[in-house]
Structure formats: C-alpha cells, structure tokens
C-alpha cells in the first residue's frame, strides 16, 4: 500500500515537470536534427548529461565542433550553479543509501526545486526522491527523442508552453513564502540576482549571483542556525 502511495505522490509531484521537459526536450531534439544529429545522439546526450541549459549550448559545440577545452570550460561555466544545489543537499541526501548516486546525478533545476521541499508525509522518503528524479529523467529523454523524430508535425502551436518551467519555480517560491519558510533567503535570492543581471548582463550573471547570495546568507549564520 505504502509503495503505491509513494509512486502516486512522486508522479503527482513530477507532473508539473512533464509539460516543461517535453517541450524543452522537443526543442532540443529539433535543434539536434537541424544540425544533422539523429535520435541516438539526442538520446545519448539527454541520458548522460541531463541538463537542459548545457544541452542547448551543447548542440552548437557539437556542430562546430568545438575543442575539448572549449567544451569543458563552457560546461563548467554554464553548470557551476549545480555545485550550490549539491552543497545545500549534502545533509538531506545523507541517508539515501543506494539511491544516492542517481539522486545526485539527477539534480536539475526542476528536480532540485521539488526535492529541496518537503516529502509528502505518507510517502517513503528515499523512494519518493528516487522516483521523482527518475520520472523527470524519463520525461527529458522522451521529449528529446520526440522532438528529434517528429518535431515538425506537432499539430498545435506550443508557443509560450515553456512558461511551465517559470511557473514551477514561482509556485514553489510562493508556497515556501506562505509557510514563512526562510523569507530572508527568498528576498536575498531575487534581489541579488536582479542586481547581478543588471551589472553583469544575461550571459554572466548566474555565477556572481550564486557567490554573492551565499556570502550574504553566511552573515550571522550562528544565530540563524540556532533557531
């Protein structure tokens, strides 16, 4: 019984990601095909990298093709934020046992947003985390393959559907805000990023944002941690 409940909870939690990953995945699959890469290349990337941002950039790197050094540095810059996600999950993922490597591998923006929140009370925590990560990975792979194979015959306009990603973050942000869960962090995150966007421009603002917000949050950590 508990098992079914966990599967149900994980599936429901992953549903908002379904729409977004299908669409972004399809976009990725189409880009790959436009550069002459077929379904195996598309699936291989979604399977092994599992990072939307880097895979979008990666299409260009493959097509060029870029050098190994260029590719490594680009990957480092585009995905440096993941280090901060992982830092904040060190404690949470401590007792996850055999699931741990896959959980870490699957820490995308969206998976992180879902799993940094609370696990539903009637679900087995580790299985729930594993299933949410797995569902999201499957959506991402299927999206890419779908785009690569049938990108041009989608019968309705999907323009604007990528807003589902934004909506995932906003819904989660609002929920935590209502629960009065670390509002200071929420404000610091938004304001720091906005300021960095203005200062550094849209290509470079993520890394300074992460560094500065971590620094700001580190002021007076002892008193905060004690409460």
């Amino acid at each position, binding site marked *: 019984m508990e098992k079914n409940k966990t599967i149900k909870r994980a599936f429901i939690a992953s549903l*908002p990601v379904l729409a977004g990953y299908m669409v972004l995945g399809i976009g990725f699959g189409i880009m790959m095909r436009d550069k002459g890469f077929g379904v195996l*290349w598309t699936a291989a*990337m979604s399977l092994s*990298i599992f*990072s939307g941002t*880097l895979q979008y950039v*990666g299409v260009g*790197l*493959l097509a060029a*093709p870029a050098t190994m050094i260029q*590719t*490594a540095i680009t*990957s*480092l810059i585009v*995905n440096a*934020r*993941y280090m*901060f996600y*992982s*830092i*904040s*999950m*060190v*404690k949470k993922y401590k007792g996850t046992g055999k699931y*741990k490597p896959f959980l*870490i*591998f699957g*820490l995308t*923006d969206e998976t992180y*947003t879902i799993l*940094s929140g609370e696990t539903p009370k009637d679900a087995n925590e580790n299985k729930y985390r594993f299933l949410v990560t797995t569902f999201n990975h499957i959506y991402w792979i299927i999206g890419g393959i779908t785009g690569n194979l049938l990108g041009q015959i989608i019968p309705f306009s999907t*323009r*604007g559907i990528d807003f*589902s*990603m*934004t*909506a*995932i*973050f*906003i819904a*989660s*942000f609002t*929920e935590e805000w209502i629960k009065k869960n*670390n509002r200071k*962090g*929420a404000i*610091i*995150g*938004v304001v*720091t*990023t*906005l300021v960095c966007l203005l200062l550094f421009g*849209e290509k470079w603002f*993520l890394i300074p944002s992460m560094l500065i*917000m*971590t620094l700001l*949050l*580190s002021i007076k950590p002892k008193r*905060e*941690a004690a409460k």
Partner: protein
Amino acid sequence: MKTEAILIIIMAGVTALLRFLPFLFFSGKRETPKYIVYLGEVLPQAIIGMLIVYCLRLTDFTTKPFGLPEIIAVVFVVVLQAVKRNSLLSVLGGTAVYMLLLQLVFK
C-alpha cells in the same frame, strides 16, 4: 563522429563532477559541518528566487507588450498558489494563461 562522442562525454563528465563534488567533499561518517547544514536550510529559497529571475531575464519591458503576458501570468500563478495551495494546478493554470495571452491576446 568520434570527436562528437568525446565532447558529449566531457559535457556529461563536467556536469556530473559539479553535482558530485560537494557530496564527495563532505562525505563519510563525519558529521556534516554546521555551516553546510545551515546553507542547506537557507540556499534553496534563494536559488528558487534566482531561477525565477533567470527564466524571466529576457522579458522586454520597453517595447510592446511591455512584459504584460509575463506579469499577468506570474501574478496568476502566485494568486492561484496562495488560494488553492496546489502546485500542479498553479503550473498548469499559469502556463495555459500565458499561452492564451501570447497566442490570442498579445499576438
């Protein structure tokens, strides 16, 4: 063909490295340092705030329609979430509103 395969391996390797490094660094039987525990409590909300700004970074507020579809859809998601407390509903509803605005209202 071989070059492309190597580049994919590099992208996958660097990405995995970034994700795994903090866990490798703070692994083992040792107690997780207090500071890292603290960051685990405060960083997620800040990061989610950052991702919202990231998603909306290309919104153009200076020319028509002055970011109105984004503003309306964001407010819609916030209100729906505050009232119904159901993330799935908020995400699907917000996305539908945004698509309608983009495709029918502000085309």
